[in-house]
């Protein structure tokens, strides 16, 4: 009887260890090679202005934001289709720090995001939201399109055609 009990404990312990190892290794593969650029607003500001001839499309999103995730592929497509037309897409994630490893990195890897991803972690949103654009109430998704001459802000979600239409106005 004692022997059986000992065996049971042994099996339980080894099972537990095994599960743990599997979990850990899957986490490692998921987040491998992704070096997140995490900034406060002063670190993000440089991405919101330009003196070059490029047009920038800056999208504010988060992994938990369903309308953001829905429109994200359109931004990826723009990044791909317009890279030769001097258009750069920057995806500014507003995910909370406690999900960087568990959700954000796995999401970037799984969806193979090619656009530049920057993480904005700055609590004092009342001070920085109007610096992105005076019209922004703080809801996401939100998108800023700009070049050195003009800038336009959208507190809404896009379809690919809508987004492309707005970007084309900047390329005229």
């Amino acid at each position: 009887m004692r022997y059986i009990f000992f065996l049971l404990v042994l099996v339980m312990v080894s099972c537990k260890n095994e599960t743990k190892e599997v979990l850990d290794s899957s986490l490692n593969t998921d987040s491998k090679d992704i070096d997140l650029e995490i900034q406060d607003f002063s670190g993000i500001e440089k991405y919101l202005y330009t003196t070059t001839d490029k047009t920038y499309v800056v999208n504010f999103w988060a992994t938990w934001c369903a309308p953001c995730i829905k429109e994200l592929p359109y931004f990826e497509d723009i990044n791909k289709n317009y890279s030769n037309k001097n258009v750069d897409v920057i995806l500014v994630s507003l995910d909370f720090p406690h999900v960087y490893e568990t959700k954000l990195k796995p999401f970037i890897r799984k969806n193979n995001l090619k656009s530049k991803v920057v993480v904005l972690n700055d609590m004092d949103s009342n001070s920085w939201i109007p610096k992105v654009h005076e019209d922004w109430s703080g809801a996401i998704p939100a998108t800023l399109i700009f070049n050195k001459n003009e800038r336009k802000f959208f507190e809404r979600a896009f379809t690919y055609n809508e987004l492309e239409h707005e970007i084309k106005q900047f390329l005229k």
Partner: protein
Amino acid sequence: MYKLKTLVIALLISTVAIAQSGYKVGDIATDFKLENVDGKMVSLSDYNQAKGYIVIFTCNTCPFSVAYEDRVIALNKKYESQGYPVIAIMPNNPAASPGDSMEAMKARSKAKGYTFPYLMDKNQEIYPQYGASKTPHVYVLQKVKKGNKVKYIGAIDDNYQHPDSVNQKYVENAVDALLAGNPIKETHTRALGCTIKI
């Protein structure tokens, strides 16, 4: 005739623009009759003794709303007895956001022990009048002769992640000022939030 047409169109456009922008501080806010998680209908006018209201558009599913749940409970605990009860309104369409169904609202209210009404803006007619664009979005109203006057619009405080690191308690500052008869220093603030699901 052409002039009339232009005028009508201009009028229509301006009406739409007004409808979209919602209330500004100083406006009189509409009352409503919305279903609470206990099945009863709730209006601001039900509160005879209230000096005003802390109206919060919030929901179950938005992480920012979730981060503020305990602080909303604390707001009602502190201010209901002083005449400023919290009235929470869930503005999302449950068809677009299943986690915000009446059943889910009931469950959350029960689990968190809400001591304030948690109403559903079922026809999605109230939040556009207020001009709420996201959850959470707060409107502090003061009862005056003409109705309920908007005194503060915006965020609960300046740190959605860490309640212990808050520097500015915007809503508390606003209600404290109203209770003391002082002007509110910051009447409009901004915070991150989730778009209202239509």
